Every structure is written in structure tokens, then in C-alpha cells.
């Protein structure tokens, strides 16, 4: 409506007749038009364009900078991720390695200990057997000697005292007595030897007696 009214107002002053010369360019309009265009062109050239280009350049740099920063951040993140992954993998390998090592250590320790224990057992056993054997040999030797001597002594006495009943029985009693003293003190080597020595002396004496 405003447009309508204003249009009507503006054309109210019109004259009624067409005049072709109205359409010819007015000289002052040419001049004013040229001035106006020149002014606007220099305004555009000197004011608008430098600022526009400056702004566009700043914007371009900003965008580029941000993109570069983003790219850099992305690359760094990738790198760190790869690093973490490799570290993680390394840690896992390391863990596995440690566990494996520990297991191997434990295994070897176990084997060592078992072997050592076995060895010790063997050694102890061997020593014990050795000792037992040595003891047995010794005892056997000792017994063999003693038995021999005792048998000899006994035989000597039996033979020597056979005429004498009373004496014979006393010899037996003595022998038993000797055996009895021998038995309880059988674990001691010294007493055994001592008694063997005693026994050894006696048959000598005893055997000597029938001869003498």
C-alpha cells in the first residue's frame, strides 16, 4: 500500500505529452554519472578490496592453520596410540617372558633340587650302606675272630677240663659268664675288643694249661 501511494504521489506531477528529447542523455547526468562511478571504483579499489583480501587471507590462514594443527594432533595421536600399543604388546611379551622365565627357573630349580635331593639320598644311602657294610664286615671280622677264639678257648677248656666234672661245669659257667658280660657290652668296640682281648688271653691261658 505504501508503494502504491508513493508511486501515485510521484507521478502526480507528470505532464501529459511524450517528448522524445526527454530520453536523450542529459549532459550533467553524464558528468555526474562519470564522477559517481569513478568515486565508487576508487572506493572499491582502495577501501573494500584490500580489506576483503586481507580478511580472506586471514581466514584462509586461520583455516589452514587449524587444519594443520588438527592434522598434527591427529598424527600425534596416531603415533601415541601406536606407541601405546607397542608398549602394551611389549609389556605383554615382557610379562609372558617373565612368567616363562619364572616357570623355567622354578622348573630348573625343582629339577635341581630333586636331583640334589636324589643325589643326597643316594649319597646318604650309599654312606649308610657303606657304613653298614663296613660295620658288618668289622663286626663279622670281630665276631669271626672272637668266635674262633671263643671256640678255641671253649674247645680248649672242654678238652682240658673234661676229666674234671666240676671244673668242666665251672668252665661252662665261666663261658656263659663271659658271654653274659660280652652281650650287654656288645655295642662298644672297646669293651668288645677288651673282652675279646680278655677272651683271647684266656684261651691262650686255658689252652696253655692243658699243654702245660
Amino acid at each position: 500500500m505504501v508503494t502504491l501511494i508513493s508511486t501515485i504521489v510521484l507521478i502526480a506531477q507528470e505532464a501529459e505529452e511524450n517528448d522524445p528529447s526527454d530520453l536523450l542523455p542529459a549532459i550533467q547526468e553524464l558528468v555526474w554519472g562519470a564522477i559517481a562511478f569513478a568515486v565508487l571504483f576508487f572506493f572499491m579499489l582502495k577501501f573494500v578490496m584490500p580489506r576483503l583480501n586481507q580478511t580472506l587471507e586471514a581466514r584462509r590462514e586461520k583455516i589452514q592453520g587449524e587444519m594443520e594443527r588438527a592434522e598434527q594432533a591427529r598424527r600425534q595421536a596416531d603415533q601415541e596410540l601406536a606407541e601405546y600399543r607397542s608398549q602394551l604388546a611389549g609389556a605383554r611379551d615382557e610379562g609372558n617372558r617373565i612368567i616363562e622365565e619364572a616357570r623355567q627357573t622354578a622348573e630348573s630349580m625343582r629339577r635341581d633340587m630333586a636331583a640334589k635331593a636324589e643325589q643326597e639320598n643316594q649319597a646318604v644311602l650309599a654312606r649308610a650302606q657303606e657304613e653298614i657294610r663296613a660295620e658288618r664286615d668289622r663286626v663279622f671280622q670281630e665276631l669271626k675272630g672272637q668266635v674262633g677264639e671263643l671256640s678255641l678257648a671253649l674247645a680248649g677248656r672242654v678238652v682240658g677240663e673234661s676229666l674234671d666234672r666240676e671244673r668242666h661245669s665251672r668252665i661252662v659257667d665261666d663261658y656263659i659268664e663271659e658271654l653274659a658280660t660280652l652281650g650287654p657290652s656288645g655295642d662298644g668296640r672297646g669293651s668288645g675288643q677288651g673282652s675279646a682281648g680278655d677272651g683271647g688271653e684266656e684261651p691262650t691261658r686255658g689252652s696253655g694249661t692243658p699243654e702245660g
Partner: protein
Amino acid sequence: MSGFLTLPGVIAENPLISEEFHRPTTKLFVWDCVTGSVDIGGIEFCLNRVILLLFLSMLLFIGLFFFAFRKPKVVPGKLQAVMEMGIEFIRQQVVIQMIGPEGMKFLPFLATLFFFIFLGNILEVIPGINFPVNSRVAFPMVLAIVSWVVYNYVGVKEQGLLGYLKSVLFPPGAPWPIYFLLTPIEFFTVIIVRPITLTLRLTANMFAGHLLLTLFFLGTATLLANVVTATFAVFSFALAVVLVGFEIFVAGLQAFIFSILTASYIAGAAHPEH
């Protein structure tokens, strides 16, 4: 008139509304001086409505760009964004399209052409102004002369005077007998017709647009004066409104055509093979 046939008072009492049809004439485009005239170098200078509207369009031009780029920001405000978009449009659709990246030095010139013409045109539809500056033939003529000077200068500068004349008068790629026909036509076209068509295309479009709007608004006023014809005023007014929209479109289109043709003439002068 009596009874229901009486028009509403506001219409009936409006002095502008009479049954006498105001025929639009060339006088629509002529304005009396509002100041005394001054003689400078044999030319009469005075301020009239056309000159004042020319100043207004200059003021709009400078104001818009000044406030848009007074403190240009990387993240633009609304006005800056709009004006940047306007220049960007000229850069992409006119300079790059017609001349190519090496034509960037013509961007200030072509952008000035576009915005100056557009602002001068758009005054047609601004209420209270309703006059397209470029319906006065003098302004398009100035711009066409500037355009003519620029593209001929570019041609001479890029190809040398003889080279440019040769490329204008003997466009490559035609068999020699054709040149008897082609050379006069080419000369006529490039040197004479181009500035005239630039001038007339713009002037005539704005002139016709102003006549059309005037006709439909005046017609609406005349139809309203009579109770019987008042019904039809609705249609003429509706069409007038549509035409206002059309004139906005034409204002932009003509500014675009003027600048893109100028760009194409520059491109042709710089590279005759195209």
C-alpha cells in the same frame, strides 16, 4: 452515487484518485531542478531528483561496504557476510567464469559495475523512491563507455594495437572470402554496437519496468475511482505487486548481465582465440 454503491471515504476523498486516467509518458523520467542551476564550462548543473537519487545510490554503495568492511573480521558479521557473498558471487560467476583466474585484477571494476547498477536499479521498488536511476540513459551510457574503454585498452595492451585490430577485424578460423562480409560486421559489432547494446539493454529494461509499475499502480487508482470498476482494481493491484517482485529480479539480472558482458568483452580482447 448513493447507498451501497458509495466508495469508502478514504478512497473517494483521495485527490489522486479520479476517473481520469493518468497516462504514463516520458515526463515520468524528467524532473525539474530543485536548486538554481550553475554553469560550469558550458554545462548546466543543478540538483534534481535524478541526481539526488544517484547520490543516494552512491551513499548506499559506500555505506554498505563501509560498514561491512570497517572492521573486517575473520568470522564475519551479517552485513560483512552478505557483502562478501556479493563480491564472491562476482568473483566466481563473472570473473572466474568469463575471464579466468588471471582476470582477478578486474574484480574491483566488475564488482563496482554490478553493485552500482544494482543499487541504482533497486531504487525502483523502494517505497517513497520508486525511480530507477538507470532508466536515465546517461548513466548506463557512462558505464558502457567505461566498459568500452576498458576492454579496448585490454585488447591493445595484451595484443598490441595491430594485433588487437587484426583479431577484431579478422577473427581467426574463417576462410578468406568470408572476411569481406565478416570484417565490417566484426568492426561494427565490437567497436560500435557493443557499447550501444550495453546502454540500451540496461536503460530500456529499467525504463520499461518503471513504465509497467506506473501503469499498473495508476490503473489501480483509476479503477478504484469508480465503484463498478473497483472490483478489477484488486487484480491490477495484485499484478502490480507481482511486477514489483519481477522488477527486483530484473534489477539484479540487468546488473549481472551488464557486468558479465563486460567481463566477456574483456576476456575476448585479452584472448582472441576464445
